């Protein structure tokens, strides 16, 4: 190397932290009021649903007269349509909805993301085929689709998960396809393609990891929709079977006695609403913080931002001649 100036490395930029990106986005989301309230509500309901069965009494035992008032023989929140404790049933009735909704969300994200990303990366006929199928599914109202499946095959837990998951996959596919189209056009994906690497490897190693932010936002958003849908199905009597406690079932059973003991409807309704609002707010917070970190130089979203990733450092954008 007879180059005149001795080429040395003067600067040692900060090392990358493993798994830092997801944590940073989540951390930033939690630091906003929206994220705090959202996560707080969600965690509170999750705690009730999963710790409740440990502390609540029997959800099936008949304690007193139907719709007996709160504080009476049926416990703090009174009795339900058959005289069972509303409190005990509320504490027992959430975990199933949460698990089913979570499983359905995972299914929706997995199917939707793969469909969307493959569609975007392969393009051409594959893209047309997948996206037209998505359009068809989007054309069927979600609830109608789910009810149709359940009424034909019968109400089974796996079918609820499947139906709710598949009915949401098209939305996920649409969002992820748009994001993946952007990433697929990036040079680093093309660079890998120029080595003759098979598409599925390119998608797995290079496209998917760049879609972290939209995946996180979609997951939280789909979870909140799944909760509403799953409890709706229970309400309509196609989910959990009586006499098992379930928030959706409870609202349906107890609505005739809403005047006598409103808590039979109110308790599960408040919890469901809090959960839906909480997850929704949290997904909103994630969306905002991933956008903000993108502006401040999140590597997955930045294009021409220079070395600085300090959000307080408005170093000018790199000039790109040509």
């Amino acid at each position, binding site marked *: 190397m007879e180059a005149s100036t001795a080429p040395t490395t*003067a600067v040692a930029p900060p090392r990358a932290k493993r798994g830092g990106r997801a944590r940073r986005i989540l951390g930033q989301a939690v630091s906003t009021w929206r994220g705090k309230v959202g996560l707080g509500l969600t965690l509170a309901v999750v705690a009730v649903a999963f710790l409740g069965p440990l502390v609540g009494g029997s959800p099936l035992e008949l304690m007193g007269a139907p719709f007996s008032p709160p504080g009476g023989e049926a416990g703090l929140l009174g009795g339900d349509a058959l005289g069972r404790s509303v409190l005990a049933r509320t504490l027992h009735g959430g975990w199933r909805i949460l698990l089913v909704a979570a499983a359905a969300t995972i299914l929706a994200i997995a199917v939707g993301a793969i469909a969307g990303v493959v569609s975007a990366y392969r393009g051409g006929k594959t893209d047309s085929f997948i996206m037209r199928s998505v359009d068809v599914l989007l054309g069927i109202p979600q609830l109608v689709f789910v009810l149709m499946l359940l009424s034909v095959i019968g109400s089974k837990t796996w079918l609820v998960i499947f139906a709710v998951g598949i009915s949401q996959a098209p939305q996920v596919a649409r969002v992820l396809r748009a994001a993946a189209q952007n990433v697929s056009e990036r040079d*680093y994906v093309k660079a890998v393609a120029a080595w003759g690497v098979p598409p599925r490897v390119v998608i797995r*190693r290079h496209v998917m990891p760049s879609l972290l932010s939209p995946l996180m936002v979609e997951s939280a958003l789909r979870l909140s929709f799944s909760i509403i849908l799953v409890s709706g199905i229970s309400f309509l009597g196609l989910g959990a079977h009586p006499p098992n406690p379930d928030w959706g079932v409870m609202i349906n059973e107890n609505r005739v006695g809403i005047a006598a003991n409103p808590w039979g409807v109110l308790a599960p309704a408040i919890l469901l609403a809090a959960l839906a609002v909480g997850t929704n707010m949290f997904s909103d917070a994630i969306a905002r913080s991933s956008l903000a970190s993108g502006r401040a130089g999140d*590597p997955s979203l930045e294009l021409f931002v220079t070395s600085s990733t300090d959000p307080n450092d408005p170093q000018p954008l790199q000039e*790109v001649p040509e």
Partner: protein
Amino acid sequence: MSAANGAGARPAVEVRDLCVSMIGSGVPIVSGVSFDVAERETLGLVGESGSGKSTVAVALLGFARPGLEITGGSVRIGEVEVLDLKDEALREARGELVSYVPQDPAAGLNPAHRIGTQLREAFQVHEKLGKNELRGRIEELLKAVNLPTDKQFLRCYPHQLSGGQQQRVVIAIAFACRPRLIVLDEPTTGLDVTTQRYILETINDMAANFGASAVYVSHDLPAVAEVAARTAVMYAGRIVEVATTEQLFSQPRHPYSAGLLNAAPSAHQANRLVGIEGRPPRPGHWPQGCSYAPRCPHARADCRQAVPPLAPTESGSLVRCLHPMAVSDGGVLRLVPSPKPEVKGGEALEIERLVADYGGRQILHEVGFAVKEGECTAVVGESGSGKTTLARCLVGLHTRWDGEIRLDGESLRQGARERSREQLRRMQYIFQNPFGSLNPTMTVAENIEEPLRHFESLSRNERRAKALEVLGTVHLGEDFADVLPGRISGGERQRVAVGRALVVNPEVLVCDEITSALDVSVQALLVEQLRDLQMQRGLTMVFITHNLAVVRSIAQNVIVLQTGTIVEAGSVEGVLSAPKHPYTRQLLEDLPTLDPAEQATAGGAK
């Protein structure tokens, strides 16, 4: 140029101690910038990315980008103190007193309105004119910038015009209200050399005809040399040298100015380019004393004590350096001719009758050339000439082509997936934009290891060892291994991209405009590094560029591409010294050059 010393009449524009800082932290971005611009004078403001030149440019309009504020100093234009103006008055001043031409002409025009509407608007914001008078003024203006004045043109939308025409419309709008000062912020950066030439001439004519002062902000030294009578060089938020352009480019006094000149390639001499190692300090991390001291080859102990003042020299220029370079040092500049690699016999890459189309339009017409082993062939052309399509055909990213591409005598299939692993390994591609070509979610080392995963079966440790070795080859060092690409500068990223290509020991390197996104000092480092590698490893290179000056420094052969057809091919020496095709001649003539002697040579080629 009385303005330089402050003697004679008051200058038209006077900037004193301009300071711009970040809101909140108070970290300075621009510190103590002072200069004058005389009436009808164009001042060049030169600096590399992050030097604060654009911040100064917008501060002249009393504006600071979001997150920044002007914290002190004065900007006087005529009798008006711009920094004292408030809302309404400031808004009125823009256009009438001072106007601005942005880098991207599309940003200066509203895509939803016709050109005519936008021109009329430019006049009517400030004064009410009669219909006929208005038409007259617009016609006069369009003639001045050499655009058609007919109705049909006025009814065009911005997207119907070329980039050069758009930029001329923006310039016309900027001059519409005859402002005292025009601020041009890299107005030619996105344009071809030929268009750039028009724009530079237009700016010169307009400044002279309309009696305006101009500040021309650019990182492009030759372009500044074309338009500016005096030039100020900025580094890390401060002006480090102000001199007449002639003086600056023949006898720079500040080591940074000299460094910039040494880094700039020339189309007329094959010089070894000397880049500036290291990188400029980031805001908030300015070193004590002279900001340039850490990178300066002439720095002494006292340079690190305090910021040197911008002091006058005996040659009449102002220099912020305790030990300015002697006038005689100017002569030592750019003398080392670039070494020539050994060319072995065989042909590494042969291209015959290559025809390619894109979206139903034919891009390449029967292109054919051959590159000998160990040789570098430059492919030159303006945007739209098909040079990137050519590169993508070579590496199999563009699959819709016909003809013959042979690598070491083996005929290649169209797409990368149809080629053998060995063929793919032998030819590697480096992308234009280092900000997009590295996976942002992987560290530098992981990015370099990526091709190894595909081409070789190595253990994790072997891969890592190879990645570290290659980081040494591209002069980055192991410190960079575990850093995300988002954290390093463009030049550093491009070196990582080079390393990623080299790690599989290719024989042919296809470089697609790899220096066009980089500053000159960084470009110089990269070009020299590539040449060293070419010599050491006997690499064959296809170097695609729009910059004829770089060609001279790196390539042995050159191919000139115009709208998909080769119009001239031959040795660099032959083609650049005695171009035969009018298009090549035009390209060479339009290329702005630094020193008057070269300009004369370029003129002689006519």
